[in-house]
């Protein structure tokens, strides 16, 4: 998908019907360092579990789906 130029974007937004108001948009979340630590720890646990899975050496990654 190609992006529009800034001029095209401005024209498009001016012409577009407005997004409906009054829905419950909220302020962005603040991320505490404990959240980041927890997320990193979660992926490290994933690493350990994945390393423990034994599979045949010839197994290739799944990139195709056949009927």
């Amino acid at each position, binding site marked *: 998908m190609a*992006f529009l130029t800034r001029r095209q974007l401005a024209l*498009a937004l001016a012409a577009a019907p407005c997004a409906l108001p009054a829905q419950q948009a909220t302020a962005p979340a*603040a991320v505490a360092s404990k959240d980041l630590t927890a997320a990193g720890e979660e992926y490290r646990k994933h690493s350990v579990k994945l390393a423990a899975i034994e599979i045949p050496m010839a197994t290739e*990654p*799944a990139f195709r789906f056949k009927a």
Partner: protein
Amino acid sequence: MAASLPEDLYFGGIKELNRKLQSREISAVELVRAFSERLETIGPRYNAVALSLAKPAAKEAKDIDGDLKRQRFRGPLQGIPYGAKDLLAVAKQPTTWGARPYAQQVFDEDATVIAKLQKPDAVLIGKLAMIELAGGPDYNSAAASYTGPGLNPWDPTRWSGGSSSGSGIAVAAGLVTFALGSETSGSILCPAAFCGVTGLRPTYGLVSRHGAMALSWTLDKIGPIARSAEDCGLVLQAIAGGDDQDPGSAGKSFYYAPEFTRDLKMVKVGLATEDIDDWAEPAARPAFQAAYDVIRSMGLDITEAKLPHFDYDLLIDTIISAEAASIFEPLIVSGKVDELQDAKQIAAFKAAIDIPARDYLKAMRVRSLIQSGFRDLLAEVDVLLAPAFYDIAPKINLPFDQQQDKRPTPKKPGLSALIPAANMAGLPALCLPCGFANGMPVAIQLVGRPFTENLLLTIGREFQARTDWHKRRPPVSASPAAA
């Protein structure tokens, strides 16, 4: 002047509405105006709408009336109002992907599925709300959306499900006749189940994703949410097909032809009894049991089945997180990721960018074994049957991790991991409403071999001929007082 139609029409099926248009009982302009007004009036109460497209829809409807007058019929979708999840590009209109950092984003061409629905003259009346970035690597709250939490039309204190939140709400509340959603792992089935409507996740590659936001190249699928299995079949026929612009395209078409499906008495269905006995929320068990009894009464050959033994959550988390972090690398490294609503999603994105290649590749290699395991399983049975979700929609006022089920995890896995498992195998699924628990809808899912959507839809159509759960309507009124 406010347009209004008999209430039944807002909940009519595609063929029924199209018959009324062809017979000139109602005009496309009247139909589209009435649905657009309903979407604009009722949609925001449930945080279902990202953008109303009433004006361009009205113009399109006028042209369709001209065609109908000249008896230029273009099939059952002609003149039918629909909505699209806001991850699908609509030319020259904002496409926010449900996320504040993309609130001003505009593309210059339609997504392939939007273009495909223009050919039979279906009318796009609005873009529908969604969980930001379709959930990203993870999220912890119904409020993880630029437009606020999707509120369930059956009980607005509960979640609509996601990530195709607005698509589920809009169909359930009669704001559109059908909607497009997308699924990476559960994002069509979840809102369909929680809102009590029918949802179809097509086989990976059957429907082009060109012009859709990518979350995971190897998992993303686009599919319909509608009132019935038949309506899902009609929509799938219009949107399926090969597309050189989607590298994942299977290059296959789909023709909805339930009449050519084999005799259902020759179809073998695999299920796990512990799904109902151990996994399901106790209040939902009678509904699931009754649904299984209906399937049994259709003459299908029922047998016990087990999923291949893998840690599906671990594998799909790794795959989605690694692919999503690569796709959204510019968002993460620029720091604009901090503008997202959900703290857990922000943290997951930041951490996921450091997932080692060996983890991703290991998960994808194990995924090959999953596909192989499913080939073996689906050589024994034609279809897998399970509850779509084991619990009803959660309350919106608490983060998901604070409303965990207090029941102990059952010893036998049953088919409880069917959603991530079947998504990793690229398999199609059909979600069918099957009753209520504590006043909220519950649903079953059918999963089949790749490209066997006609078989799933035929079973679904027969199920819906014997039940009326898909015809139930939530207590939604156009009157503001009834919000």
